[in-house]
Structures are given as structure tokens and as C-alpha cells.
């Protein structure tokens, strides 16, 4: 790509970002809170596998939100399902 084209693309992106500022700010806010929640779940799992109620107790997040994130981290390969503990499954960090 020529330098001229690169510069034009940069300018166009700048304008697009200005036009979409409101939604970008909202999404950036969501990313921040998601990252915080993911970090607390991962921290809770650092010392070994836990069930969703145990993660909930450790993170103080609503259990349904913990469940959504655990399922997501599992889908993207960061968490694995471990053994069963009573009626619940334990979840473990994959890179722990």
C-alpha cells in the first residue's frame, strides 16, 4: 500500500470514529467492565478449579453473569470443564 493511500485511510478512519463517537464510547465502557469481570473470574480460578457458586462467592458477581462468562471463556479456550462436585461442575483455567 502506498504511503498516500495509507494516509487517506487513516484520515477516513478518523472521521468515521468521530461520527460514531457515542457508540464507540459505549462499547469502550462495556469492554472495560467485561475485562474486569474476566480478570476476577480468572483470578478466582488461579488457585484451582471452582464451581459457579464458588466463583460467585469469590468474585461477588451475580451467578448468572459468572455463568455467561465461564461459558464464553470455555468457548474461546481459556477455561475447561473439570470434574463434578455435587450438582455442579468445576471450571479450571487452561493456562494455569
Amino acid at each position: 500500500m502506498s504511503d498516500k493511500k495509507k494516509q487517506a485511510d487513516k484520515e477516513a478512519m478518523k472521521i468515521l470514529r468521530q461520527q460514531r463517537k457515542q457508540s464507540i464510547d459505549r462499547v469502550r465502557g462495556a469492554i472495560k467492565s467485561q475485562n474486569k469481570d474476566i480478570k476476577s473470574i480468572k483470578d478466582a480460578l488461579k488457585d484451582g478449579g471452582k464451581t459457579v457458586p464458588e466463583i460467585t462467592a469469590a468474585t461477588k458477581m451475580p451467578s448468572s453473569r459468572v455463568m455467561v462468562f465461564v461459558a464464553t471463556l470455555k468457548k474461546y479456550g481459556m477455561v475447561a470443564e473439570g470434574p463434578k462436585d455435587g450438582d455442579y461442575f468445576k471450571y479450571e483455567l487452561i493456562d494455569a
Partner: protein
Amino acid sequence: MSRELHFDTLVVGGGIAGLQTALDLADQNYQVAVIEKDATIGGKMIRLSKVFPTLDCASCITTPKMAASAHHENITLFTYCNLKSLDRDSPESVTATVTQKPRYVDPDKCIGCRQCEYGCPVYVPDEEQGNFNLRKAVHIPFSNAIPQIAVLDMENCSLCGKCARVCPTDAIDYFEQPEDFIIHAKTAVLATGFELTPIDQKPEYNGGKVQNLITSMEMERLLAPHGPYMRVIRPSDGKEPDSIAYVQCAGSRDKTLNVPYCSRVCCMYAIKQAMLLSGALPLADITIYYMDIRAFGKGYEQFYQNAKAMGIEFVKGKIAKIEQADNQYVSLRYEAQEDGGRVVEREHDLVVLSLGMVPGWTPQGVCQVSCDTDRFIKSSMPQIAPTVTDMEGVFVAGVAAGPKDIVDTIAEAGAAAMEASKYMTALGKQKAA
């Protein structure tokens, strides 16, 4: 100037009805265009776990039809498109204006590698998985979606540029705009399917705002091999359920919802799901609360009897109230009709609402075809030619014409293809004369 394309038949809707119609016509050498509003073809069927009454894996029987349509030399698929108008201008021609919604991903460059998805930092509820887990803002709808092309959800994009940086083929285009194009065809087949009635409509069901109260389509996802948890657990806290209940006629045969008709498939899919659950969770109690069981098709009564023999409990009684109980249980109140009519309250780990089927699309303002009192597309000869509508050379197939199962949908799709073929043959003969 909009791009203009010419085909023999335009099929609206890429569910199983639309795909079967397209395949039947394409095999007779007609050129077919299929327009689909979603980013993938396959309709509801590709999102199911298994299908009654055979318990075949839904994906195993839908994917080959999807692939056959995608690879057929006489079929052109237009996904992620809206139908703006469909008019008949002469006996030989219908004209459709279609809007290609922006994917922000160049379909000719995308190789479906998912690098963009892995790189994207934004998590969004995944509607394809009942919102039980999250997807990325840029994503491929699901693993067996066709086409395997990513779509960027601009509403949830932070324009951080990461997807564009990691894409090996330079396919991301943040500047894409909607684009109209025109399709001319001789005939059209409407195969726009259905949606479920909304979960929040009934105040006596607490507007659906009860933890572990889910829809039948969400249960399909929990049971599917590529589901959100890859097993059946409670969405509120991951508990493996000991007791699961079905509330039948939760959105059908209900005048208060303006859905007085029977949605026909709910009894059968509830029985199917109950059977699958008793396989997945052999120790769980499964109860179906029903008004009456309508096992209408070939082999369906036997399917119902098999479910009873497996220990699934059938309780005759209409659920009057659904509430949150302690420990995230769901409480159901009903009149036990076969037990002296006493009022009973029972709690379950997980409750599934068998919601009703309503039309997936309304033609009003888009096309002149008439709808019936139930708002599904009206057949002008329901007894002898059920796929014929009151718009010349425009036919209807599948649930677009009224609730039905896959077997009847496929049969009707074949009939619609035959009617379209007959119409085009007659046009050819008129020209020759």
C-alpha cells in the same frame, strides 16, 4: 443505477422450505435466486438439536441441503439481505428490490479463518446461543453456518482496528454501505417461516423475567452438541437440573395473545426434548404440563407412548402462574384436572415455555400477497393447491403459510417448486403459440 439480475425463480427465505424449493427447481435446470435476511442459510432447522420423530441429528440432515444449495450451479444465494419490494409487472415477470446489508467484511476476500473473531476485544450476547454465552463483535454466526463469512456488528464495534490488522486477506471494510439491487424473475416462492411468540407477553408468567425460565428454542441450543455449555445445566448458576418442566400452549391457543390457533409442533418437540433430556440426565424428573397432546403425524402417537413408557410425566393442567422460588427454582401453579381439580404448586430447576409460532415476515408494504386471519400467507386454494397464493405466479411454502413440521414443510416446498415449474412451462408454451 442499481445492479439488475435475471433468474427464473426468486425464493424468499433460506430455511429448509426455501432451500428444498430452490433445489427442486435447480435440478430441473431453472435458475434460482435465494434471498435470506440472516448472515447464514438454514433457518430454524439448522439451529435444532435433533428432530422428531426419528431423533436424527438436525445438523446432519440440514447441512447437506445447505451445502448442496450453496454449490448448485443453478442456485445463487444472497445472504444478509432485506426484501424491500416484490411486485408483478407482467405475467412473465416479478421484480424485487433487495438491500444487501453491510457485513463490513468483503465476502470475496474472507476465508472464514476467524482470526478477526479471536482478535476482537468486544464480547456481545450470542443470540444464536440463546444469549447464554457471548460472541465477538466480529464473528461467524456459528460453526456450520453457510457461507462461512464473518459479519461485523457495527453497533458493538469500537473501531479499534484490530480485526483489520489481523485479517490475512484484508477483508475488513469499515466503510461498507447498504446496497440495493434488483432481481427480475418469472416466479417467486415465499418461504419466510416463523418466529416464536415473545417470552415477555404474559403477566401471569411474570413477563418471562424468572431465572431458569427459558424458551423451547433455547432448550434446543442447550441440547445441541455445539450448544453454549455443551451440556444441560441451569443458566443461573450451572447446576445440573434434577427436575425440568414444560409448559405447553404457552403462546398458542391463547386469545389474549391474539394467537388462537394451535402451533401444531409444540407437543411433539416438547416430547422430543423430554426424551433427549432423559438420555442426557437419566436421574432428572421431567414433567410436561399440557392442555391436550396433539400427536398428529405418522409415527407420532407411538413417539408419545414411548415417552410415557420412558417415565416422562404428563400432567393435564394449564399453568396459571409462574414465579421465582428460593434457590433459583421456578414455581408453577396449576389446577390438577385429573386430580380433583385442586390447585397445586410445584417447583422445578428449569422450566421451558413451549411458545407459539407466528409469521416470520409480514408482506404489508412490500408485496401485495394476502394474509389469512392468522396473519400467515393465505393460500387461495387450501384444499387442492395449498401453495398457490392470490398473487399470480407467487407461491408459498413451509411455515410461511401456517405452522407445520419439517416433513410437511419439505412436502410443501416440493409442491411449490412444482407449481412454479408448471407456471414457467405454461409461459413457455404461450410464447411458442
